[in-house]
């Protein structure tokens, strides 16, 4: 096989792996390829409806726009880029640390620079494909209603996908050089998580501090932002102009993205082998625990202690918790502001907190209930399964109480009634998330946490709808109590349906 044929063959292999990994993610590892593809097509078709609702009103937009609209559009594109960067960093760390074929590749007589170049290209393609898939319904609607100029949107999505992948590889390689192989994985995971939401949270913080609202658009549409916005011919607006149909700029952006990716491939692919070898040489740093006497207590206490210890020592969870805390930063700031003013917007804090609690509880419940690394040990222990479950649910409730109690306590100073409603809603949202995890539990390793959503789509949606439902109900209790009754009943109905179709019913 000549060099080109060899490269093509490896590229095919990489893309096949990427496709199967993606398919496994979509189907939860079950062999239902046809059903998954059909389901995906139906989902994509349905997605055109919300896409229509969101973008239909913008079909007549043309450059030049007013500064506020340009700012909102540019910020949205930048947010998409940040999310793709976050996903790409995750893919790169997986290639460095988790791909089982690295030993095989490293020991083969193939030219590693070429092989890793293809692998970088595969990461870029995967990230871009996912973005294209999600943006297609929106662009379809715009093209259908506004004409072919909107097709330029595909080029913009591809450009930001490729550039995000290039940036992710550079960031990870830089981290690797700065902090070494041992810590890169954890830090990259945290950076990836923070980047994804950091931009939105930063906008919210600015909005809270400046305008007393949690709306991220408040600052972007303000006069201050319009005043400091660059001139219309600035490079900053290129992505926005390209997405509005400026073909020339779109092609330029695409070319820049390709050049960026090419440079990253040229610079980093030759060093990839060295990086992978260094990771392999540091499989897991020896971490010394603290020697101390065995503690007494009940069997459930032993279980709870173990769960808390594992949660504390879980780097991924650390980054996830950090994310949840970051999401709480804007409402916390708003709470702080409300002490000095008479902001009625404080009511908005409750749904944000309840939503965050529900989401965090879902993750914690998965880790404690499904993510049991020694299921045989726990199942052969001399205590009834109900007591094991109870201990694990208690851990979730206690962890949520620890995280959210300070915020609720602060809220109690500003508005005692709202604090009570918030506390009750947090408890219900947490219990609901734990219940969903119990009904849909599927034994897995804790390391599979990132893929927990793929084990059951129904569970994922039930968990999300329950968090949103209880958040909305809590907000309505404070504003329109009658509507809260309807919202609460609908959320209960969602949970009842989830229970009815769950495999663990009864």
């Amino acid at each position, binding site marked *: 096989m000549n060099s080109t044929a060899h490269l093509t063959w490896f590229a095919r292999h990489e893309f096949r792996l990427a496709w199967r990994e993606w398919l496994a993610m979509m189907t939860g590892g079950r062999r239902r390829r046809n059903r998954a593809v059909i389901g995906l097509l139906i989902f994509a078709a349905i997605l055109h409806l919300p896409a229509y609702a969101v973008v239909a009103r913008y079909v007549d937009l043309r450059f030049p726009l007013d500064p506020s609209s340009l700012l909102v559009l540019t910020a949205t594109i930048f947010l998409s880029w940040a999310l793709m960067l976050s996903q790409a960093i995750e893919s790169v760390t997986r290639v460095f640390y988790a791909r089982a074929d690295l030993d095989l590749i490293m020991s083969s007589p193939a030219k590693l620079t070429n092989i890793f170049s293809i692998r970088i290209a595969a990461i870029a393609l995967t990230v871009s494909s996912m973005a294209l898939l999600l943006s297609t319904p929106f662009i379809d609607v715009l093209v259908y209603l506004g004409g072919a100029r909107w097709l330029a949107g595909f080029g913009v999505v591809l450009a930001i996908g490729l550039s995000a992948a290039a940036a992710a590889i550079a960031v990870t390689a830089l981290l690797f050089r700065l902090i070494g192989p041992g810590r890169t994985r954890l830090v990259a995971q945290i950076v990836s998580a923070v980047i994804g939401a950091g931009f939105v949270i930063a906008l919210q913080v600015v909005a809270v501090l400046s305008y007393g609202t949690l709306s991220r658009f408040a600052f972007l549409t303000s006069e201050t932002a319009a005043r400091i916005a660059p001139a219309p011919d600035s490079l900053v607006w290129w992505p926005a102009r390209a997405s509005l149909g400026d073909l020339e700029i779109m092609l330029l952006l695409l070319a820049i993205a390709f050049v960026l990716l090419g440079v990253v491939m040229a610079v980093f692919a030759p060093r990839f082998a060295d990086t992978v070898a260094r990771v392999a040489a540091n*499989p*897991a*740093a*020896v*971490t*010394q*625990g*603290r*020697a101390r*006497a*065995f*503690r*007494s*207590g*009940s*069997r459930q*206490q*032993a*279980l709870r*202690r*173990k769960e808390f*210890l*594992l949660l504390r*020592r*879980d780097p991924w969870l650390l980054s996830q918790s950090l994310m949840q805390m970051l999401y709480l930063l804007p409402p916390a700031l708003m709470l702080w502001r409300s002490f000095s003013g008479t902001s009625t917007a404080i009511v908005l804090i409750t749904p944000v907190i309840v939503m965050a609690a529900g989401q965090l509880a879902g993750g914690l419940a998965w880790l404690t209930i499904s993510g049991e*690394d*020694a*299921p*045989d*040990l*726990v*199942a*052969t*222990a*001399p*205590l*009834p399964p109900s007591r094991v479950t109870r201990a694990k649910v208690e851990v979730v409730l206690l962890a949520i109480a620890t995280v959210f109690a300070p915020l609720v306590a602060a809220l109690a100073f500003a508005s005692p009634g709202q604090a009570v409603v918030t506390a009750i809603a947090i408890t219900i949202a947490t219990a609901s998330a734990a219940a969903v995890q119990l009904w849909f539990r599927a034994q897995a390793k804790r390391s599979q946490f990132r893929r927990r959503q793929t084990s059951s789509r129904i569970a994922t949606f039930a968990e999300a709808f329950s968090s949103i439902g209880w958040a909305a109900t809590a907000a309505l209790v404070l504003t329109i109590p009658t509507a809260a009754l309807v919202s609460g009943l609908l959320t209960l109905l969602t949970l009842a349906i989830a229970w009815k179709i769950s495999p663990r019913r009864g």
Partner: protein
Amino acid sequence: MTSELSALAVRGLTKRFDRPAVDALDLTVRVGEFYALLGPNGAGKTTTLRMVAGLLRPDAGSVSILGIDALADPVSAKQIMAWVSDEPMIYDKLTPLEYLEFVAGLWGIDPRTSEKSARNLLVSLGLEPHLNERCEGFSKGMRQKVALAGALVHDPRLIILDEPLTGLDALSARHVKGLLQERVRAGCTVIMTTHILEVAERMADRIGVIAAGRLIAEGTLAELREQNGRNDTTLEDMFIALVDTEAAAA
């Protein structure tokens, strides 16, 4: 033999997946016995032992552990039993001592007793230098030893091991075998599946051969030889002959 005198008495144990995995199996293991359960891949050994350990619910049959009906009163049965699987399941983020503390806590053992016992076990398995290191960097052999120590820390009267020597080096395997024999001498009952027939030949008081979910031969090595009319053959030869005969009959 009455069930009171048996460490394990299994009657009519049945489990079906796509096909019968365990087919109305009767099995009796005496107190203080080292019993080796042999069989080809997919014979039903692990399924049998998982049902005994309470990890799988049988479709039919009964399981009695030292006179306790394990299906009616699983908690009491589990209190005196330990299970070690071929794939060591331990917590990466805990140290061996923390893992054993957790196991002792689950079995409700007094911490003063269990701490001493845990340290002794880990030291006897050659893990002394790693007592306070997190298990995430451990080799499979080291993990298997931690799992075994976990099974022994609550001083069970019946130990069930599924391929416990897989992945262990010669020295570690010797440590494990020594520890198990020591337990048997102390009156504990050990039931073990293994594909290393030499281990069964040298360690087991009695050997059971299972194929297609049924016990096709059982006894001491001498009894098995007698049953097969081959006084000078090795266990390996007998095992292959038994399994071949069973396969031909099927």
